């Protein structure tokens, strides 16, 4: 789950990383700005990439802070309404650095990226001047970044940044973060500040950090998660239900390859019973664009008779094409054919039939 800028900065500050002086303003509520803030950055708290370019960050001198803030509340940033704004003192920038920590899958370890060319899109730097980016992994059982790793990363940049790296590493490890990023990390006459911050937490560890609800999911996706399946909305007219992420993805791919348009990805998970299957079928049945539903289930621990009962119980109006294989296959098939459902033996036959029916 992505944290908002002010939430991320709150965590950084508690870890000892300096952040600019500022105040969080909620839409419709009054606020005070300290009189000694001469100039401020007015920042919409929306989670979109390229927020600055999309008009989500405005600059204002003291006299115009209030008006600028009101103006920003009236806008939408890449379609998202602005509900919260962070007003921060403008920093006296001497230099901008980039610092991030993420997980290197193939090294199975945290990886730290640092460059003296901060403040811009890191992918741009990676393309134009890859040599400027220093990258180092840390052995995951260490509680601190070793000194030689810090020296390698800094490559002559101010030593104080080493302490910031150390603190960000502690945040990354203790928060179960998938990404901890400070861009830019700004050098000012008063020292270093995290001018912007990004934290993405591991969805599987949210409960451990007292977070009950994953804000990143859409309403329908959240409902699906509550029923125990993973669900992604696409925008076609063929509803897809499978079991297992790989098989379901392969079903979506095959529909596309055959010229059809999948409406979604829905993995009912292992061992789905009639209740779960019925929920899944009803969820797709409620999507207005769906004209055909394909159910492609390969039972290991999933029982085909349960699946069949769930499909029948859902009783949706759309045509359903079923491919079932595995435990209690004969019973499941008998049940479905007694109700007139169309059943096919292989995944390719079922997908072909669904694509034809939907076109």
């Amino acid at each position, binding site marked *: 789950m992505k944290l908002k800028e002010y939430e991320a900065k709150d965590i950084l500050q508690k870890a000892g990383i300096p952040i600019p002086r500022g105040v969080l303003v909620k839409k419709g509520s009054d606020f005070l700005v300290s009189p000694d803030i001469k100039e401020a950055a007015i920042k919409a708290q929306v989670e979109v990439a390229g927020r600055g370019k999309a008009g989500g960050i405005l600059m204002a001198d003291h006299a115009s802070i209030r008006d600028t803030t009101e103006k920003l509340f009236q806008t939408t940033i890449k379609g998202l309404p602005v509900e919260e704004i962070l007003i921060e003192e403008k920093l006296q920038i001497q230099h901008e650095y980039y610092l991030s920590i993420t997980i290197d899958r193939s090294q*199975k370890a945290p990886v730290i990226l640092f460059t003296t060319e901060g403040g811009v899109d890191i992918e741009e730097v990676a393309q134009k001047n890859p040599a400027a980016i220093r990258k180092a992994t840390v052995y995951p059982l260490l509680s601190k970044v070793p000194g030689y790793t810090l020296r390698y990363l800094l490559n002559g940049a101010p030593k104080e940044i080493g302490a910031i790296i150390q603190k960000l590493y502690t945040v990354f490890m203790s928060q179960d973060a998938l990404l901890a990023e400070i861009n830019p990390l700004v050098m000012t006459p008063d020292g270093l500040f995290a001018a912007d911050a990004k934290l993405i937490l591991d969805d*599987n560890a949210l409960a451990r950090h007292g977070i009950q609800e994953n804000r990143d999911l859409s309403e329908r996706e959240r409902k699906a998660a509550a029923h125990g399946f993973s669900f992604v909305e696409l925008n076609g007219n063929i509803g897809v239900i499978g079991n297992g992420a790989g098989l379901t*993805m392969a079903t979506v791919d095959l529909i596309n390859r055959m010229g059809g348009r999948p409406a979604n990805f829905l*993995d009912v998970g292992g061992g789905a019973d009639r209740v779960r299957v019925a929920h899944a079928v009803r969820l797709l049945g409620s999507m207005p664009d769906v004209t055909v539903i394909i159910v492609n289930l390969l039972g290991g621990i999933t029982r085909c008779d349960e699946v069949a009962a769930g499909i029948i119980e859902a009783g949706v109006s759309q045509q359903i094409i079923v491919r079932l294989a595995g435990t209690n296959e004969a019973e499941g098939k008998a049940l479905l054919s007694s109700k007139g459902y169309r059943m096919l033996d292989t995944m390719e036959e079922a997908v072909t039939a669904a694509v034809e029916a939907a076109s």
Partner: protein
Amino acid sequence: MIYADKNTGVIVCGATGNQGSFHIDRMNQYARSIGGRGVVAGVTPGKGGQEVHGVPVYNSILEAAEAQNATAAVLFVPGSSAGDSIMEAADAGLDLVVTITEHIPVHDVMQAVTYAQMRDCTVIGPNCPGLFSPGEISMGIMPAHLATRGPVGVISRSGTLTYEVVHELTRAGIGQSSIIGIGGDPIIGQTFADALERFAEDPLTKAVVILGELGGNLEEEGARSAELPVVAFIAGTTAPAEKRMGHAGAIVTGGEGDANAKIARLRDLGVPVADRLSEIPAMIRGGNLNVNH
């Protein structure tokens, strides 16, 4: 066959839970049908002394390993404690831990896998269907009836996709030596490269099918070092970027791990990549791999 065989004594962690107890029964039905040792002990802290389908339950992995001479474990414990169980197994001196559990925090996996490696303990998974070697051993949740013994190894990031391919191979008369679900998480123990290295030392295996998906670059890494002929399939060629398709590892971020780019890189390495699952048996035969013995 690789990683384990008929004589491997297996411990199931999370033995008294629904999943654990159900699969102890299934694994042992298979073991009995082929004359293997199967699951010899269960572990659930606080429930030592009980029995699950005739298998004695212990309070710790160390106790279970010593009492029953077991060297491998299958984990069905909850995600929040699975990292802990991997380290416990490594500390108890086990050689192999197959982690079926999904939704384990990535940091837990990262640390547990590193810890296990330090103790020379091999980790398969997490978030995987386990290991199945027809005629030798079942360590996980793969349905036994789909597989048949033969010369083709299968390595996969996904569960049911594996069953689909094994089913296709069996129907085409091509048997399997070992089927390894390496798991769908961003960090996993055994990778394609690791499993391919094991297959290269296995006299039974003549070719390997690798079933990958979008996200990361483990497929390419494996193909680069493979000594045996490899055929691949990659799921997620039409998945939208930045959307997670079930597996935590199946996500494209910042352009990394795109399925089509992955397929192109595999083809550049000379690996045949199937557009459809149903093409795999013919590609195996087309490779003149002498798989009909």
